């Protein structure tokens, strides 16, 4: 075979391929318009939206400063913290309060739980009143069971004779109970309405909320409250933050004075009603607050809470109750057994 016999067909082969490929290249270039298309870099464009900037996003956090101070101007007092009424609180949460009282020289005791530790104590209301007699003041935190008739009568006598009582409560709410792997939902209500009604006030039907960031402490249910009137309990306080508050309703022709009201724009959680909601009231020697979490370790230094708590503790320790009140006999307090 001569070289030409190989070269010619080979030449034709190459020419045909080149012509077809060149044709498709021309077609592609014509149809494709721009040559090579945009580079990746041309399509990369970052963004930093204005509403994502720190000044728009980062929340204001209340400084947790200040300290709880209790004076002992009226001598050292004995304070009882109630645990007899299924009180829903943890003792370790209120350690700052107990510590402040102890630091000022006051004595703090918890009522023994149950009936087993019964040194004069127990389910009998006579026992309760007998114990009260030993103390100058009573702090009741989040009771979920009611006070018996004789206990209420005993407390009335107690406050009538300058015994000091502070009741901290929470509105009816649904919470987790049981814990562990299978917690269940349960509804917990304030138990001491019978007692507070005796003083012209009761817990309202609903919790409160406020969506305005300037009226809550990073949570719509954690709302601010401010003094409504000047009193020893509002001294030095601009704003307190209540963790999970309800509102207090004054009953009938109540003598109770409203000391604090929730921030403007606060509404009821279920029915979304607007209003001016009382959160702290006082009637003579009883103070009633519609939140019980503000004295917890995690909340007690928020806003002016530590000043308010100091004022409350001063209120508790400034009474002057005679030693024989309330009476422990069954006189005037029938039943209870």
């Amino acid at each position: 075979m001569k070289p030409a016999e190989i070269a010619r067909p080979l030449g034709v082969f190459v020419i045909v391929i080149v012509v077809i490929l060149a044709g498709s290249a021309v077609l592609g270039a014509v149809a494709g318009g721009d040559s090579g298309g945009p580079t990746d870099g041309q399509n990369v464009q970052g963004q930093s939206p204005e509403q994502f900037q720190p000044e728009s996003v980062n929340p204001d956090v209340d400084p947790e400063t200040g300290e709880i101070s209790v004076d002992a101007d009226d001598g050292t007092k004995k304070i009882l913290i109630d645990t007899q009424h299924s009180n829903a609180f943890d003792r370790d949460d209120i350690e700052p309060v107990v510590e402040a009282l102890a630091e000022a020289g006051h004595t703090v005791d918890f009522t023994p739980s149950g009936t087993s530790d019964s040194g004069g104590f127990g389910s009998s209301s006579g026992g309760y009143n007998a114990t009260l007699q030993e103390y100058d003041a009573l702090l009741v935190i989040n009771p979920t069971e009611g006070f018996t008739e004789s206990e209420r009568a005993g407390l009335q006598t107690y406050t009538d004779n300058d015994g000091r009582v502070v009741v901290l409560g929470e509105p009816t709410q649904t919470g987790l109970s049981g814990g562990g792997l299978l917690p269940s939902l349960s509804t917990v209500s304030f138990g001491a309405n019978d007692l507070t009604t005796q003083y012209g006030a009761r817990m309202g039907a609903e919790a409160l909320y406020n969506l305005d960031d300037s009226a809550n402490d990073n949570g719509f249910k954690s709302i601010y409250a401010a003094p409504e009137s000047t009193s020893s309990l509002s001294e030095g306080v601009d704003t307190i933050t209540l963790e999970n508050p309800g509102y207090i309703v004054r009953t009938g022709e109540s003598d109770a004075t409203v000391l604090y009201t929730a921030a403007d724009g606060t509404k009821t959680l279920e029915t979304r009603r607007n209003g001016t909601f009382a959160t702290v009231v006082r009637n003579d020697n009883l103070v009633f607050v519609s939140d019980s979490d503000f004295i917890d370790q995690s909340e007690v230094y928020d806003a002016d809470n530590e000043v308010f708590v100091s004022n409350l503790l001063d209120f508790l320790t400034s009474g002057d109750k005679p030693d024989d009140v309330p009476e422990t006999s069954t006189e005037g307090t029938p039943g209870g057994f």
Partner: protein
Amino acid sequence: MAASSESTSATTVLYVVVVVVAVLVATVLAPVVYSATTGSGDSEGPSVAVLTLRGGTSGANVAAISEDLRQARNNDSIEAVVMRIDSPGGAVTSSEEFYLAMNRTAAEMPVVTYVEGYAASGGYFGIAPSDAIYVKPSSLVGSVGVVATLPSALEAQNAQVRNALRTGPDKQLQTIDSVREELELLQNAFVGTVMEHRGDELTLSRTEVSSADTYRGTEAVQNGFADEIGTLESAIQRAASEADGIEDDSYNVYYKEPPSITASIILAEGDVESTNGSIVYVDQGDEEAGTDFVPPVRYYAVYGIPESAVENEEVVTNETG
């Protein structure tokens, strides 16, 4: 002579074979050459791309829809995007990604959303930059809020902390207070986004929006969470009418298939790489593979409760939102 004629016919056969083989070879190579010279430009007429997000704004789903959006932006023939959505939201982080992808796209071309079912919480976060939002009466939008999983995760972490030596008091420790602050921060970004993009249309104040209520389509059109009652095709028409590169009805509609469920499971489980040009995107999915640690608290922009909560009666609280 006979030999010459034989030789000629043999030569002819040879050339025929050569030409046929050459044409075959060229035919195989031609598309390669053609596409190389056409580059990434698409020669078709102007199009409206219909992208679909059905399902939560999970990391995998958002990665897929973000890729679709990116392709739409980079395709010269696509002049507008219609986002067809049915999503109750999901993790805050991926919901923000969805928003950023939509925002980036809306800055380049008209984006019109059709709410097929839900565009709630994280789903609404994403569609907020749309030029228009179309709904039907049963569409559900809103739920502008964030929830955190509590409190068992916190308890688990705080228990874990007792089993560890730490270098600082805040290491590995979160409190209810700190979770709330983070919730507030994430919510500020979310509400801020809705107000930024929908503020002019909304009849509700920022505070009212942050109550996180949901609205059906007809309510949403009245309060400004949505713009029009309509169908998917209403949205396509609107998108086409707003696109600079489309005149009258001379456009095509390109339906991008939504990612299949199987695909999203695979996406969630493994690393995914997608390439475009020389940029390689690697997606780690929802879970970081190869570690035994998980965030103690997870934040969701979501409407609804996890299936596991219903099945196992575990409760996720939204009380701090």
